[in-house]
């Protein structure tokens, strides 16, 4: 990641499906092309739903990092 890329962290831990996805969508709407959104989610469904949504919406799914009790899921706004 270059230093110019902004990472916006959305802490959706404790929120249940579809809360983290909805938080991501809201954040993407408010971001600029090229921004990276990192969603912290304790709902295991997020790692299934978020990549599907990112693909459909034309954004880049950057991956999941598993942490203790939650995941960090990164998406880059592409359009």
């Amino acid at each position, binding site marked *: 990641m270059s230093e110019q890329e902004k990472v916006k962290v959305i802490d959706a831990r404790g*929120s*249940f*499906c*579809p*809360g983290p*996805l*909805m938080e991501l*969508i809201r954040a*993407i*709407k408010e971001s600029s092309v090229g921004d990276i959104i990192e969603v912290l989610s304790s709902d295991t*469904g997020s790692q*299934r*739903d978020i990549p*599907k*949504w990112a693909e*459909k*919406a*034309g954004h880049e799914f950057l991956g999941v990092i598993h942490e203790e009790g939650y995941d960090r899921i990164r998406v880059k706004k592409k*359009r």
Partner: protein
Amino acid sequence: MPKTIAVIGGGTGGTIVANNLAHRLHDQLVKGEVEIVVIDPSALHIYQPAYLLIPFGIMHRNEAVRPERSLLDEKVKFRQESINRIDLSNRTVYSDSTKITYDYLVVATGAKPDYSQVPGLEKAGYDFYTLDNAYRLREALGRFKGGKLVTAVAGIPFKCPTAPIEFAFLVDSYFTRLGIRDKVDVQYVYPLPRPFTIPNVAEDVQKMMEKRKIEVNLLFNVESIDPEKKEMKSIEGETIKYDLAVLTPPHTGAEVVKNSGIADKGGWIPTDRYTLNIKGYDDAYAIGDATDLPVSKAGSAADFEAAVVATNIWDDLNGFAPSLRYDGKVMCFIITGIGEATMLIFDYDHPPRPPPATFACYWYKLVYNRMYWTVTAKGLLPGFGV
């Protein structure tokens, strides 16, 4: 001075909790040791599940509305006014004309459609989320002789998560019964990658929709609607044209909880998922649609929650430790067509496993629509045995 239990909101949750407590506290109420006060700006209580059925002529206005006073136990006080501020730290709620200091507070202020979240939503089409809109939709369905009917969820969360699915199934039955189903293209539009939040139920729903030739369009998050062009655009970059749009609006919490600084950014009250206390306050509870709990915004959840709160307030008043925890229980019907239904029963730890749809279950739903007034709202069968 009597101990005061203040209940803000005279919908399903508020009415049940007040009546349930009135039964338990009969003697203390008669002696004047305790008072229960329900406060709501409306004198009318609406059975909101009727909204889904009115468009198809299955229920009618006179079956959906009762005076709130007629539902409440006679020992419960009812004040028809708006509470505009809740001060949890000082155990006081305020209306324009008065203030009430409480010993226990139950906030049951519900959820309401928020059309402002999606440009064009309010003028775009029809919905079944108010009584008047349910009747507007009934007229529109009656006039509709063919074309593309799109039923779309335009934002999450919303009241009664199964309602959009049920609406699509009812549309299929309704036009089949009228003999014009072949002239109506039905499309179900949903923001998630499956047609319902709970994966195993979603699988069944998808199969049923395919069988009934209901087109399913997933991952479509409505961004805006153009009522002139009759088209809706999604955040994902797609456009859908329609002849008749029936939309589920996103919902938000009540103004009073937002204005009092006790709501999160969606307008929901941070609530302990087991005790139902408003977080940080052991004398204040939130139930029903007003909470931020990960359960359906539905009367059934409010019913189960009301039983927990009534029990634990009674326990505390009488010197006992709380004896119930809410386990996330919800029980709701899914109408899968005119004359058939199934049922979802689930909690925090057990997802629903709905049985095959039957006429018997549909019939039970019709009976329940009447039983609501005489049993559920009266607090006579608290929480179905929680």
